[in-house]
């Protein structure tokens, strides 16, 4: 790969890619350029090792054994909760519940709220950006309960039309469930505006942080929302684990969507007394190794500094947008100076699948298709896009290589 002299500040300090063994391989004879971080990021060695160390030294079931290993595993698991809560500035770590990921967290909230909070005919406000994972759980509830989903529309520049929200709110509105960053466009939701409206109308807010948590520092306590959810695997952690943050009110009031072992004080066949706090929402044996891997990923992020990561990624996004703009056949969506490290585009007259297939031949991994945001695609009146999304280990040189190969691909597709 041709390495230009320019490096981002972060690249000058350290070759972060060295910590990611998977990145050091050739794909189709070219060095792998991994630009599919919005789908999942790669994992640094220390996360991989934290998971295997757990199985080598501490594996045991938690919260129930008297033996040493069980105590050790329990301690490590609860320490992981503290580490992650601390990173997100959540003072009471009991408000942080381990789940299987963003999708799982949203389903837990939707099933819980459906039990006694949402009533027949109620309405929920979503945005046009939403990932299917933040649509389907609400849609199922709506279909079963004559409910309605109301959708915040887009403006011409593909940012959300905040001015339209007030008009969507009625006496039936019960919740705003919204993504903090569009996984397809990278555009950032102005949560302050959403919060002001929610406050005025006494509406709870669920924030889908699957795509924001990997790219920006978030003080969750200060955010003052009701539900905050994200996935470890999009922020250098393992798959199959994520978090659900509950505000103090909901920690007490959210009905249990599921229940079982590990959540109780006493059980008779007639009645159960539940424990308080996070464990109440974590029935069964959790993904212990996943939680530890997540905590290790948080340590990796903290060591580097989320501000530094964001700065580095911002430079990458600016540069990639600039190079893409220089290619006349490229149509970019949601182009913006202030966005997370996600860019969607199409090549005029070409199917994103073709562009992605040929880029892969050059070892460049991109995502093509609807990105689990079909309603957004319908709104933009397209079938799909090519999406590139960056992480801490990507470089300006990779973007140069990508841009050069993209031009070649465009010529090939003619």
């Amino acid at each position, binding site marked *: 790969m041709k390495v230009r002299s320019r490096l981002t500040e972060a690249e000058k300090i350290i070759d972060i890619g060295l910590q990611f063994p998977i990145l050091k391989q050739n794909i189709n004879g070219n060095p792998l350029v991994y630009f599919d971080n919005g789908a999942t990021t790669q994992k640094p060695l220390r996360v991989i090792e934290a998971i295997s160390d757990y199985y080598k030294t501490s594996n045991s079931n938690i919260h129930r054994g008297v033996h040493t290993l069980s105590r050790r595993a329990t301690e490590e698991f609860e320490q992981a909760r503290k580490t992650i809560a601390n990173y997100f500035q959540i003072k009471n770590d009991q408000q942080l519940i381990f789940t299987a990921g963003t999708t799982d967290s949203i389903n837990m909230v939707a099933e819980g709220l459906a039990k006694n909070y949402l009533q027949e005919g109620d309405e929920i406000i979503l945005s046009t950006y939403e990932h299917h994972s933040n649509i389907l759980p609400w849609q199922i509830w709506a279909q079963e309960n004559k409910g309605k989903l109301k959708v915040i529309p887009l403006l011409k520049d593909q940012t959300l039309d905040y001015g339209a929200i007030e008009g969507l709110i009625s006496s039936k509105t019960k919740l705003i469930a919204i993504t903090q960053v569009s996984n397809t466009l990278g555009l950032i939701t102005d949560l302050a505006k959403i919060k002001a409206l929610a406050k005025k109308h006494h509406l709870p807010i669920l924030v889908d942080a699957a795509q924001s948590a990997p790219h920006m520092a978030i003080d969750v306590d200060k955010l003052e929302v009701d539900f905050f959810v994200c996935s470890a695997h999009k922020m250098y952690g393992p798959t199959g684990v994520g978090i659900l943050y509950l505000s103090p009110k909901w920690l007490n009031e959210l009905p249990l969507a599921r229940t079982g072992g590990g959540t109780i004080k006493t059980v008779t066949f007639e009645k159960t007394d539940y424990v308080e706090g996070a464990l109440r929402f974590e029935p069964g044996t959790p993904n212990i190794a996943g939680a530890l891997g997540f905590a290790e990923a948080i340590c990796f992020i903290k060591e580097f500094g989320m501000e530094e990561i964001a700065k580095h990624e911002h430079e990458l996004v600016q540069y990639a947008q600039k190079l893409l703009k220089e290619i006349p056949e490229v149509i970019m969506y949601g182009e913006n100076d202030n966005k997370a490290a996600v860019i969607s585009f199409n090549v005029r007259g070409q199917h994103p*699948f*073709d562009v992605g297939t040929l880029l892969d*031949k050059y070892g460049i991994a991109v995502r093509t298709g609807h990105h689990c945001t079909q309603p957004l695609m319908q709104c933009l009146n397209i079938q799909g896009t090519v999406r590139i999304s960056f992480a801490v280990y990507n470089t300006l040189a990779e973007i140069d290589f990508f841009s050069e190969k993209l031009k070649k691909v465009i010529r090939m597709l003619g």
Partner: protein
Amino acid sequence: MSIEEVENEIIEEFEFFGEDWEAKYEHLIDLGKNLPLIDAALKTEERIIQGCQSRVWLNAEQKEGRIVFTADSDAIITKGMVALMVRVLSNQTPEDIIKANMSFVDKIGLKEHLSPTRANGLVSMINQMKKEALAKLAKS
């Protein structure tokens, strides 16, 4: 020509490119561009084979004991692959179509397009072509 003869012809055609994948894909793209257009009236919802990303349309007609396929796709690489499948299986007898194993795709180094994760609808298209042949046999 028999299915095997057509397959051999294609293998020979692709041998020419050797390890030069760019030339090979340029050829595949050309094949896609040159695939005779499917009658627009035939591009209906029923004839659509939905891949996760690219879509394929397939039409089958009977002609003197043989099945004639015409097809299309909205992605050009998929369409190139579609052109190859049509070239091999169209104008053959149902018996031969059912027996065809499409191993030539591996031999020309394009097998990755037939993996189920490619989500391009090609595997479903081949299944559909065989189903058409089976249906024809059942009727006769």
